[in-house]
């Protein structure tokens, strides 16, 4: 195992222009904070704490809202609008505890009828939108910190809009056993497990299945029940209190 260097050991000098040299410099260009967002409808947004242009992590469709911009960026996905006001509360764990953060964007710009972020929120939800947050060194065009997840709207006010974050993989909210033994097929119609190509969605029942070989359910089509030790329906035997006042 490596030991820490002795106190008098000569210091290594990071190469000029290297990320270590840039980060460790006593003065220099401050990092910028970049936020890429892609909504589930495919619209992409790029926000930073200052106007900035660079290669994004996420790309997507230019939202319809951008058509009203006086000076739209030449390449939508490369330009970062200076809307990001706060990116904080990052807390990362070694355990299985979910990581978290808070992101705040301004809601001041717009026109006399509608503020930009409020209008975007009304147009389509940001719930579940993918995001990638970076602390970015402009000089070396390299991120020193990168964090991915999904957005959830905490509050939208007149001045700003606050998003919480959900972990990208969010294991705590995904069933390990999403499928059940059921008389209803467990597949989503036409997805790879089903693979029906007739473009005629079923009702997840065997009767409406057009790929019965792929029917993912069980059928209890022959049951006698009575006298075979099966559990019968539980009948309520408590006397109702009909004098009860509501």
């Amino acid at each position, binding site marked *: 195992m490596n030991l820490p260097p002795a106190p008098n050991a000569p210091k290594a000098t990071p190469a000029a222009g290297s990320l*270590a040299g840039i980060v*460790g410099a006593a003065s220099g260009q401050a990092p910028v904070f970049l936020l890429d967002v892609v909504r589930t409808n495919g619209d992409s947004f790029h926000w930073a*704490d200052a106007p900035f242009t660079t290669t994004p992590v996420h790309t997507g469709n230019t939202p319809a809202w951008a058509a009203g911009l006086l000076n739209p960026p030449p390449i939508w996905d490369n330009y970062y609008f200076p809307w990001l006001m706060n990116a904080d509360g990052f807390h990362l764990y070694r355990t299985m505890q979910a990581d978290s953060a808070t992101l705040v964007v301004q809601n001041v710009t717009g026109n006399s009828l509608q503020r930009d972020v409020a209008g975007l929120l009304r147009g389509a939800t940001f719930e579940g939108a993918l995001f990638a947050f970076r602390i970015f060194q402009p000089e070396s065009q390299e991120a020193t910190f990168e964090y991915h997840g999904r957005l959830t709207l905490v509050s939208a006010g007149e001045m700003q809009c606050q998003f919480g974050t959900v972990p990208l*993989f969010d294991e705590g909210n995904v069933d390990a*056993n999403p499928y*059940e*033994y059921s008389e209803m097929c467990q597949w989503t119609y036409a997805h790879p497990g089903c693979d029906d190509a007739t473009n005629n969605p079923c009702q997840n029942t065997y009767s409406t299945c057009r*790929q019965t070989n*792929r029917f993912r359910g069980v059928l209890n089509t022959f049951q006698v029940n009575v006298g075979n030790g099966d559990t019968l329906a539980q009948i309520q035997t408590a006397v109702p209190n009909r004098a009860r006042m509501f």
Partner: protein
Amino acid sequence: MPAQNLTTANVGIPIPLAYGFNRITGNQLGFITNPPSTSTPPYPPMAGSFPLMQVGFWAGGEGEWDGPDSVFIFNSRMLAYSSNGTYIPPDPTTGTIPPDGSSDYTSPLVGTLNFFHFHPGVDAALNGHPDNAKQGLDSLWGWFKGLVTSLRYTRTAYWGIGWTPQIGSSPGAMTPVLDMRCMRCRIYDASGNQIGYQFTTNTIWHVVDMYLRRIVKPEYHIDATLGPDPLTDAERNCFRWDLIAAAADAFDALGFSGSYAFTAGGNVSAAVEQMLLVCRGYRQFPAGQLALYVDGPRDPVFTVAGAMLLPNSFQADESLVHQNPNRYIANWLETNLPAVCEIATISRSGSTTTITTTGPNPCAEHDFIVVGGVEDDRFDSGYWVQSVDDSGVITAIGGSAPDSTSSAGGFIGYLEARFSKRAAEAPPHQQHQMAMGQVLPPSAGGSRLKRVKVTYDYANSTWQQAMLVLLYERYRDIGADVAPYQPPQKVQLTLWSESVDTPGNILWKRAICGNVITLDETVFHEFAGLWEIVEVEPHGLQVDPLLQGGGEIPQPSANAGTIILTLQQWNAARFSVTAPVATASFQVVPGSFLFSGAGGTSWAVTGGTVTLTSASGPPSGTYEITVTWSGITGTAPAGGLLDYDDGGVAVYSNQFPIQVVIYDPTSEGGNCVSVYPSGSTPPGGSSVILTVASPPALAASASYTV
């Protein structure tokens, strides 16, 4: 019309997800008892004379599973054997034991296994396409006389069984139990190329499968031949394959084995936590990619100096002491075979093996016993007990030791006893118990210990693995049980986020949970040393108008440009704990460890030939077969080529199936190919390169390219 339920599926319960080796009862989907019949098809579905026939289907879990090792009905092992005692394995393609296989040696006491069909749980063929052999419509549906709708149970591992109770007995409906090799998993190299799709006991590949199956690519197709749909580039980029492959190799190097079944419908987080628990594993998401680690000795990656520290931000505590319990208890199901007695002497004469034991033994006629750990390891094998005399001397058939040989030592176990429930507690941590329980000063004499217990569930495991991981947890939580007690401490400090250490490491890049860092003496003289990062709180953006009382004047946040690190004292001694010596009741049969092999990243055979040559006689019964190998080359985990020496060994026709395996040449002396007959288990860390199901006929030979 039979007055019974024919379709009996328990509905409304989760379809289990199972990895590694598990003992399974399954969800009974259908069951029928047919009276003796001599009629012709369609009822019964095949011509012939049949005794009373119970037929049923059971579902195991979500596919694709690998296959069964053993089938038990009424606690007796049910596997097809030919009339000369040769094991008839499941067909490797269809998973089917041939229906015409004689069952003379299955279990004469409780009944006869007539049919066993296994379906691994791939996707059935689409309508209009020919059935695939793996997930086709099972022919046993014919015994249900058209009364029920027959299904292929696509993507569900299930099996059909036809069984006849012993004449004169009245055992009721059969209740089969199976020892199963469960999920097949995709295996990748360090660049993210899929290099395997196979059964494995490597937990890292189980976790990868869980994330793929449930989160990254939940909608996919499992082809009967090609396996699961390949990942797209975008899906592949969700993983840090270099770190995952390294973790998989680290898992193999530890000799651990992961086996567990998730049946209760919990979430992925709980399942992954259970899986990682058995191997000291943890996971991180650097830059949004899944990275897996097996905790182990590692070097520090950053050195913190005093100049990086915000003034007065250093805090140390011993919160781990009062937060944690001190009685660490492990629960698991033993995957080795528990030993039932110790062997005094063992000898072979002709085809009969005679065993004496050091004490009483529970063996009885028709038992299938497993012998391991004999001084002459040629006796290590499975045997059928023919008789046990009044003094306890066992006479058995089977095994592969040469005629007129004898040896001593070893243990006997039963396959039925695998997966026995075990609970064991780590030795008491008296120092912690004293720290928690002091009421009177030490000068008052006596000790007042406070015992607080915690139980870890290690699923299907072994004494060795469970105790090693349990002691690791205890060491990490509350330290070594030595006086004076020095528990592991925690430290929280705030650093300037743009710190770069003397060798040029950037704090931003190194501040990842699980990394080990050095605090040098300029930080805090008394706390200088190695620490593990357990929490990271980076503070990013430099303006925070929220703090301005409603005003919108941007000002730097108080914590802008800093990172709070929570550290835990690092002591690599936690990796060198040794399991306590097991009590007699934990003794297992040596060599019975369930281990799938290296899991794909360790050994890859690139060429070679294995040849089996049968002797010419005798005309019936057991005969000798010479197994030779030549030109076998492989690739080592580090990428180097391995060239194995040519060699050979003799086995007998009643020892099939046999497994040809390779070992690490650095530990096995160079010639690393060996043959393991039925009933014996290759050692941990080896890889099976060839399985031969049945012997060549008399005076014949067979050659296999590996």
